[in-house]
């Protein structure tokens, strides 16, 4: 983008050629590195830097400095966000009270001072992360399918409440996973070349109920449904725990903070629901006796 727009700039370079020289050799340069990285032409921030330099050092030249500030602003407006420029300049003006960026070393090792232009970076993301999300969407979808049966099939009031909660959290989590994938430009499901994507042929994720189990659940009513639902959902949730474990047993996986947090929450949330379901199951068994 800036290349195209840089064409008319050389015409006005004589305005600040001398300023650019000052800045090139000054300590301002590293502070403006970030502006450089975002693609502003060298002379733009040289100009800006020299402008601020002059403002600091020679207040009597304020007028000319203001003139170049106008140019500087113009050029920056088309090449870099204003806030980077401003933070660079400000860091010059507040040397004494300037905040520092420090990166400690390993225990016992000295810390490193990082330049104020330091910005955050991310660890790499692995294919295992993507596959985990894709698989878990499919896995969760079955839980939603199961809870959708509750209103017409179950009698137990406690189970109805639990169903609402499971349905709500699993739909929310599906939403989250779709969003995570979409935001990273990844497909929502794993498309395998030459594979039929119909329901039956799909590889079942750990813990997922087989088509036969699902059929039995659909046909059951009342107490029998309650029992099949609880045992089925315990099995289903147990599978999610296996999937989380597999994820973290993969090199370089789970370093994405969103995914790490999500996978950990899936693990603890499903463990908690398993516990509740186990208790309910015992209760229904006791009532039978």
């Amino acid at each position: 983008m800036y290349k195209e727009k840089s064409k008319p700039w050389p015409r006005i370079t004589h305005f600040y050629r001398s300023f650019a020289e000052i800045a090139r050799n000054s300590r301002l340069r590293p502070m403006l590195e970030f502006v450089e990285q975002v693609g502003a032409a060298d002379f733009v921030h040289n100009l800006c830097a020299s402008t601020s330099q002059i403002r600091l050092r020679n207040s009597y030249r304020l007028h000319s400095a203001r003139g170049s500030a106008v140019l500087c602003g113009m050029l920056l407006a088309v090449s870099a966000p204003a806030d980077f420029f401003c933070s660079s300049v400000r860091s010059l003006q507040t040397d004494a009270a300037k905040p520092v960026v420090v990166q400690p070393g390993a225990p016992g090792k000295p810390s490193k001072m990082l330049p104020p232009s330091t910005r955050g970076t991310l660890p790499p993301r692995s294919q295992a992360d993507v596959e985990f999300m894709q698989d878990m969407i499919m896995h969760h979808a079955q839980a939603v399918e199961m809870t959708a049966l509750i209103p017409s099939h179950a009698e137990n009031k406690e189970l109805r409440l639990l169903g609402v909660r499971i349905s709500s959290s699993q739909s929310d989590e599906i939403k989250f996973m779709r969003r995570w994938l979409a935001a990273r430009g990844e497909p929502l499901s794993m498309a395998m070349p030459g594979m039929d994507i119909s329901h039956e042929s799909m590889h079942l994720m750990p813990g997922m109920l087989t088509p036969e189990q699902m059929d039995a659940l659909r046909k059951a009513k009342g107490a029998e449904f309650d029992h099949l639902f609880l045992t089925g959902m315990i099995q289903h949730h147990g599978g999610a725990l296996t999937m989380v474990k597999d994820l973290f047993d993969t090199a370089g996986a789970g370093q994405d903070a969103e995914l790490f947090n999500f996978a950990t929450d899936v693990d603890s949330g499903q463990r908690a629901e398993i516990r509740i379901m186990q208790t309910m199951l015992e209760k229904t068994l006791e009532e039978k006796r």
Partner: protein
Amino acid sequence: MKRVPSLALCVFGAALILCFGVGRMQAQTPATPPQAQAEAQKSATAPAAKEPEEEEENPFAPEPAPSLPPGMTGSDANDPRAKLQPGLYDAGEASVGIRHLLLLKKPDAFQLGSSDPDDPKVQKIFGQLRIGNSSKIPKPMQLVIAQLAFSNSDLAFQGNHLFQGNFYGVNIFDISNPANATLLTSLVCPGGQGDVSAYKNLLFMSVEMPNGRLDCGAQGFPPEPPAPAGEEKEKKRRPPAAQKDRFRGVRIFDISDIKNPKQVAAVQTCRGSHTHTLVTDPNDKDNVYIYVSGTSFVRQTEELAGCSGEQPDKDPNTALFRIDVIKVPVAAPQDAKVVSSPRVFIDPRTGALNGLNNGGTHGKKGSEKPADTNQCHDITVYTALGLAAGACSGNGLLLDIKDPVHPKRVDAVNDPNYSYWHSASFSNDGSKVVFTDEWGGGLGARCRANDPNKWGADAIFQLKDNKLSFANYYKLPAAQGDSENCVAHNGSLIPVPGRDIEVQAWYQGGVSIVDFTDPAQPFEIAYFDRGPIDPKMLVLGGDWSAYWYNGYIYASEIARGLDVFELMPTKLLTQNEIDAAKTVRVSELNVQNQQKIEWPAQLVVAKAYLDQLWRSQALPADQVAALQKAIQSAESSHMSKGKVAKLKSMAPSLEKSAATAKSPANSARLHGLADILKHPTA
């Protein structure tokens, strides 16, 4: 030449921005850079949040809550907080009884590369992350794509320093002038979630994520190469992912030089440290202890010897079903190490490590079955009582910590409406414990009008003779939008004498201050809230924790930065009560290491009690007026002997009223008031 007019226009516009910007910068005192930065970023970021997005099949569209389960009620959709204007830095705000003083934006070093998604550098990062076709990603999403990686987390305080944890490290602020707080140090050391505690010259920090490195590097670890073609279908067991440079556990920094902290120790644990709790032993000044709550996966034994994630029946040394205790010699923190791994979930009768019964005590006796509450999420210790309250995933625990290395469970509770036991705090007198339920893990919208107000709420328990008994729930009374992550989260006591008051963070539900003096009838007395970051999709944000520290409320805003507030008087909280709270000064605050609050025998504290007695009509109006008058004349006489003697003479009748007071709270207030009148200090 056609370009010239448009360039001229651009010059004009840019000059306006620039001159304004420069003018502002010069007007700022040198000590306030983050504020200026906040202003500058405001103009750069706000418009992006309003970009229209595609309608069809939008995975970012929030989902409305399902209808309320029968018998449940939700929060109030007519509350002024329910429909505030959205915006990252220009969201609508609503508050009662709280004044917002400052928002300090998250420092640049803790933001991904750039705030401009069209910027080639950001595009490059997207490329590195293998984000395809980023043009299709809505702009706000681009801005927040890695937000949790730079998410602000919990707070700790020491003197004039505030430590704000972050998944990417710690930011240290100077709060000597709270309304004009400034950033001192950005400590880069990723690994999440950056829970922090400060003790003397030591700063402790929790690390749990697999990208944590011993050397604080941000590069993480390389992913395994893609499987050779044809092998994708079979998810073969892959080689172990062990890394000797990985760090998950508790880091210890020496902060003697606040602008150059050094890592002095890094204590590895099997599950890392999601949160930790500083424990001081009144009988041992040479050591402090850290209770480590690890909630995530157990790492491979190849990486840290002895770590096992097996069930207890398979491996009695499993890293599940325990907490870890680190002993830190204060003079030699480099020697810090794990000294015990208490099995706080053990069944004392059978010896089963997974001995806690969950969800079952509400049913019948005899149906107890070992289940797996296998972790604590957070523990609050109250050394003055010798007790700790553990919020431990499926249960709330009460631990005896008189021997801090060997905490023992003395009670455990559960609740059918609880999804995940998240945090706990005691009332100052130790008669109550407030637990929180982090339903949805904090990532979900859980305060919508249709979300039951018994789910994702506080649960207030009474505590007597080491037994917890449920009293009531408290949930943010205002409904929140479906693009606002919201659930009960971290809070601290506000030291108003005579009342139990907690300020609490509810993520994008904002800050809510609740009075739980009567545990059966908690009610809100003040609040602050912002609109959602984005109206059309849930962008993670809001307050992680909101704590009172020496007269001000500080809230750690996940996405936006650090907020500072002060209390304003209302009919539910008078100026005297606020002033009395401000008399309490501490030199350090680590909220999960709860310290007993002691109030000075100052007349402002007496006035606070008096306001409360008047409010609850525990004393006749004429007696209240006579007491007020006597206190005022003692004050205006600069505590002359006669006026002080007059105060003293009024104490006995208060003691008498205390004996017959209808509520324990009023009885305590009357006693407190009488005590001060007997020996007031200036």
